[in-house]
């Protein structure tokens, strides 16, 4: 007992209780602050932006943020939505499913947001969407996952601004089969993203008369790939690769060392190299190879006026990097989705004459009613068709070839190439 007293000369029970009391008071004061009351029609429309500022999605999140700010500036400069300014309420979800759900709850029940928007990584979308549905918060994701169109989610979750992985992958098969070869070896990370490619592409290439001669799944913890390459059959005409994460540089370097000058054709998804300079040391082996791009990173010779204006508004140069830092390469193949989604939200709110959260269901119905989305400043990536039943948009895809260290557009798919039968009808679900 003496020892205890000696250790705690100036910390009494009273002071401890006082501190706790002050803490409790502070918490109570925080929670009791008067809530923002949307009493006037000129009050901002608050869009909760679930952004990956930290965690594995941070490089995507940085550019999603810049694109979002640019899109909102354009909307506000043009008079806002229904005469009201748009305000972005950004919250970091840490690219974490649990935190993502918490952020959605915060949007709906504390920050008085009209809608949630902007999530990219699939596990965050899937972890958050149930809460968005339960809280009846329209949740516009920019994820490219097949989760929305697969029917896994709910009526409040929509993906109107970016195509999904299933449509992207199946649209690549005709080009690969007709131009690169029919015998394909797939190398993919052994988790959900890689499995989507494995399943959708192997089916699509078979429909084009091709075949997958080998599937090489790389464990997600792998850091060296040389030992996997001998599994590539000699008859392989095309290597289809979708490695993601920092290991991609090692992957490409080791692939180059393995094949040397006599390589098969290579086809990859740019997801591997988003925010990575294509001229980085070690990537020389990619010269002459092909990539899917959601939106061409490099300004092309026949660049549309819309892409030019969009690029300028977001602050991206002709090489796909920040105008203020040439080493800060954008996630150009995906981030247009934020721009286009915000324009769809604007169009939906205007169609529904949206005034406040009571009209969230009307907003969803207005977006569900959308179909054709012609190329323009609202849709600078290209024309699209929205499927209100599956809550998923479909649009053209781009295939580029690396030439002299730049990605040069080689083929543009049709929208028809990307279509597949509906797997869900969300409009049958009640609000």
């Amino acid at each position, binding site marked *: 007992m003496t020892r*205890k007293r000696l*250790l*705690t000369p100036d*910390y*009494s*029970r009273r002071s*401890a209780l006082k501190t706790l009391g002050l803490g409790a008071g502070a*918490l109570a004061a*925080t*929670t009791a602050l008067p809530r923002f009351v949307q009493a006037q029609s000129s009050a901002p429309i608050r869009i909760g932006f679930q952004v990956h*500022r*930290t965690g594995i999605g941070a490089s995507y999140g940085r550019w999603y943020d810049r694109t979002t700010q640019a899109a909102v500036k354009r909307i506000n400069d043009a008079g806002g939505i229904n005469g009201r300014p748009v305000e972005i309420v950004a*919250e*970091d979800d840490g690219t*974490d*499913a*649990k*935190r993502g*759900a*918490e952020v959605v*709850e*915060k949007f709906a*029940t*504390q920050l008085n947001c009209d809608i949630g928007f902007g999530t990219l990584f*699939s*596990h965050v979308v*899937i*972890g958050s*969407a*149930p*809460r968005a*549905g*339960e809280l009846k918060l329209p949740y516009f994701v920019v994820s490219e*996952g097949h*989760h929305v169109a697969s029917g*896994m*989610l*709910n009526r409040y979750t929509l993906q109107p601004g970016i195509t999904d992985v299933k449509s992207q992958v199946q649209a690549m098969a005709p080009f690969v089969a007709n131009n690169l070869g029919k015998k394909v070896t797939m190398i993919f990370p*052994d*988790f*959900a*993203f890689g*499995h989507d490619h494995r399943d959708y592409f192997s089916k699509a290439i078979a429909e084009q008369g091709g075949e997958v001669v080998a599937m090489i799944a790389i*464990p*997600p*913890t792998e850091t060296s790939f040389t030992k996997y390459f001998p599994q590539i059959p000699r008859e392989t005409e095309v290597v289809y690769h979708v490695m993601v994460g920092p290991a991609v540089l090692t992957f490409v370097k080791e692939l180059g060392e393995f094949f040397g000058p006599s390589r098969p054709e290579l086809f990859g998804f740019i997801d591997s190299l988003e925010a990575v300079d294509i001229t980085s040391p070690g990537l020389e082996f990619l010269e002459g190879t092909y990539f899917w791009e959601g939106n061409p990173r490099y300004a092309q010779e026949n660049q549309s006026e819309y892409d030019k204006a969009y690029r300028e508004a977001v602050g991206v140069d002709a090489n796909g990097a920040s105008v203020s830092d040439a080493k800060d390469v954008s996630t150009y193949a995906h981030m247009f989705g934020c721009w286009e989604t915000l324009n769809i939200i604007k169009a939906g709110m205007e169609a529904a004459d949206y005034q406040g959260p009571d009209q969230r269901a009307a907003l969803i119905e207005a977006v569900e009613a959308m179909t054709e989305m012609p190329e323009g400043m609202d849709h600078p990536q290209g024309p699209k068709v929205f499927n209100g039943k599956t809550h998923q948009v479909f649009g053209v895809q781009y295939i580029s070839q690396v030439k002299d260290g730049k990605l040069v557009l080689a083929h543009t798919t049709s929208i028809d190439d990307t279509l597949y039968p509906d797997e869900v009808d969300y409009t049958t679900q009640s609000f």
Partner: protein
Amino acid sequence: MTGKDAALHLGVLAVLLAAFFVLPEYHSGSLARIMVLAVYAMGYNLAFGYTGLLSLGHALFFAAGMYGLALSMQIGGWPALPAFLLALGAALAVAGAVGVLALRTRGVGFMIVTLMFAQAGYLTVLYFGAWTRGDEGFALPQEVRNLFGLDVTTPAGRYFAALALFAVVLLALGALVRAPFGRTLIAIRENEARAAMLGYDVQRLKWIAFVVSGVVSGAAGAAYALLFGYAGATFAGVQYSIFPLLYVLLGGAGTTLGPFVGAVFMFYLIDLSSGITTAYMLVAGLALVLLTLFLPQGILGTLRRRALPWLP
């Protein structure tokens, strides 16, 4: 359990019951999640705080419960209650098997073995991606998430389901650690050799504590999937083995309410600091360093040592 212990526990539960009607929706919703995480930490506390088993692999048991429930509902089409019981069984089986092997080691060896088992569990979830959807995970449909007719997707349903689980675990573990069994665990924690010399079957008692700890963690995982509608491999990752350790260290290892206090503290530390700065993890890290330096026994542990020696 002494009268004071019971009064404190029942008082806390009464406050939590009232909190739903008093707190704004955001905070009551957050409290539901915190209670589920606190159950996880309470399970962890039995192994670490009371028995001295510093496990770095409890995410394995959390995930066993989570997938036990979510897969049986998603694939098997089971109702929530049998799925929850199956989840407890899954956690029991996994904890039992891991305990048999891991408890052959001690100290740093035990930490590493449990960490490796959890990592193997994480990779297993990825490997069976056709069913688990791996890292992406899957959502449980809203319409199947009800328990005894209680729709746990509503704010009230979710909150009271979380509170019920929290109450059962708090009272049960509170009674367990005051019972001779719990006292023996503390004796093992304080001096394992002496406990063995006194005739206790230390290895068996540690295994039982480890299994109970794993089952409670599994219950939390199952509850998370049921109440929040999602199961994903993230929850089997190493960070979810670290979280309960943090909650317990912050709140007070070897105190019945410490895990809850630690979970509340961590949640609001992240939530409030993220509203101030994007470097909120730095703020959280700094706060943790300061707490560790100045309150090495955690919040309730320090309170018990300095002011309230009766604190359970």
